[in-house]
Every structure is written in structure tokens, then in C-alpha cells.
């Protein structure tokens, strides 16, 4: 049993380490994020489950009747897949919020390229290069706060996948609804720099109510799109 646990640990550790990016030095004693461990554990469980299924299949063929191996079948077709489903769903949900995920559709290419361009002065690039938002920059700005915001963003994402796969999107890509101030205020709203800003004090009420959009002064957020460029 202990040998099996050690083997599982030996399999998991490199998988979690492989999932971590090599770009930035990690703190001493770093053992990965929850998402990376879910991913590593998920991969191990998938391998285990495929092994169990193949084993069960061979046993079925040699014995002819499944009556003597209900336990094995319930583990291979019931218990382990439930764990795999949980790990995969959790990892997929986490991964679908990353910039890489948004950039995986080529129509998002110009936006992501500008976001990562250190020389760009667009609002999105400024937030990205200075790490005003530490990770999942697209998702953070394009989803409302709280559970309702997450659900709406995920449902919206499903719509995006559908439009992209079926090719029923229109260029240039436009935001579906006017950008609400509340997404900016979620971070900036309680910042002392923002609250004590002399330029913002006269319009603070309008900013808080959304009567005046933050983007009226803080544009451009993304680069201007050309129809041709967005198709590249």
C-alpha cells in the first residue's frame, strides 16, 4: 500500500511541476497551485481508469459473464470516472478563464497580441504589463463580480464557442453591451488613489452611478480592429 502511495506521489509530482510555467522564479517550497494539482491528479486518474477499463474488458472476454466482477466494473465505469469528471471539470473551468484560452480563437488574436505588447498604451495592455490584474486578465475585466457574473460569463463563453465554431460571428468583433463601470469599480472603487483623485472628485457620483463611463476618458481599451486583421 505504501509503495503504491509512493508511486502515485512520484507520478503526481512531475505532472504538477510540468503544468507550472517556467517563466518566473517560484517561491522556495513551491508545490504548485490547486488547479495544477487537480490537473496532475486528473491525468493520473485518467491513466488509472483506462488501465482498469482495459483490464475489465479482458476479464469479461475471458470469463464470459460479468456476474463475478461487478465490483471492478462499478469502480472502472462508475467511481473513478466520477473523480475524473470532477477533476476535468474543475480544471477546464479554471483554464477557460485564462488569456491563452481566450486567445485560442484566432479572432481574438489582435486583442491578445496588443494585450501582451509591452509598448502598447491601450488600457488593456497597461493593466496587463503592470500586472494591475495578476492573472486571467480578459476574464477579470469581461465578467461581473460574484456567482451571477461567473455564470453569465460562462454562458456567454458557450455562445462565443458556438459562433466561432459555426462561423456565424461578425467582424469587427464588438462588445455585446456597453461596458459597465461596476467592473472597473470592483477594484478601483475602494482605492484611496481613486477616491482622493482631484480629477475624479467632481464626477464621482456620476462614475459610481454609471452615468459617466470610465472609458470616456480611459480609451482606447483595445486597438482599433481592421476587418482583415481580425481574420488573420
Amino acid at each position, binding site marked *: 500500500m505504501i509503495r503504491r502511495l509512493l508511486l502515485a506521489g512520484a507520478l503526481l509530482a512531475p505532472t504538477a511541476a510540468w503544468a507550472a510555467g517556467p517563466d518566473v522564479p517560484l517561491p522556495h517550497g513551491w508545490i504548485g497551485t490547486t488547479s495544477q494539482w487537480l*490537473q496532475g491528479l*486528473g*491525468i493520473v486518474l*485518467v491513466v488509472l*481508469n*483506462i488501465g482498469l*477499463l482495459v483490464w475489465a474488458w479482458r476479464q469479461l472476454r475471458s470469463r464470459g459473464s*460479468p*456476474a463475478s466482477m*461487478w465490483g471492478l*466494473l*462499478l469502480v*472502472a*465505469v*462508475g467511481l473513478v*470516472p466520477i473523480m*475524473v*469528471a470532477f*477533476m*476535468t*471539470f474543475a*480544471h*477546464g*473551468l479554471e*483554464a*477557460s478563464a485564462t488569456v491563452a*484560452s481566450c486567445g*485560442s*480563437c484566432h479572432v481574438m488574436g489582435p486583442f491578445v497580441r496588443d494585450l501582451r505588447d509591452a509598448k502598447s498604451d491601450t488600457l488593456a495592455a497597461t493593466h496587463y504589463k503592470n500586472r494591475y490584474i495578476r492573472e486571467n486578465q480578459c476574464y477579470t475585466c469581461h465578467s461581473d463580480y460574484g456567482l451571477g457574473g461567473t455564470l453569465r460569463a460562462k454562458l456567454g*463563453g*458557450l455562445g*462565443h*464557442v458556438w459562433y*466561432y*465554431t459555426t462561423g456565424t460571428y461578425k467582424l469587427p468583433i464588438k462588445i455585446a453591451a456597453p461596458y459597465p463601470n461596476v467592473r472597473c469599480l470592483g477594484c478601483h472603487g475602494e482605492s484611496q488613489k481613486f477616491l482622493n483623485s482631484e480629477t475624479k472628485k467632481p464626477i464621482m457620483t456620476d462614475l459610481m452611478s454609471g452615468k459617466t463611463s470610465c472609458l470616456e476618458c480611459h480609451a482606447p481599451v483595445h486597438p482599433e480592429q481592421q476587418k482583415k486583421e481580425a481574420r488573420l
Partner: protein
Amino acid sequence: MLALVFNVMAAIVLLRATPIAFTLFMFLAQPLFAAALVLLVAVVLTELRGRRTP
């Protein structure tokens, strides 16, 4: 076989979680797994009923 397809699709999401792969996992792989489980439970119940009625 259904559970195997489910595992392959899960492996794709775990190794490279693109939006399309994740959507397919949610709406295709998970129902396949559910179908496999329902079929297994049905077979178990049929077998048990067969044992009770001689």
C-alpha cells in the same frame, strides 16, 4: 467503450484545455459517461432479477 471515449476526451481537456475541447467534454463526454453508468446499472439490475426468479 463509452467510458473509454469519456476518458480520452477528459485527457484532452486535462492536457490542453481549449474552449472547444472543454465544451465537447461538458456536452458530449459527460452524457456518454452517464449513459455508460446507466447501462451498467441496468445490466446489474437485470442480472439480480434473473437470480431472484428461478
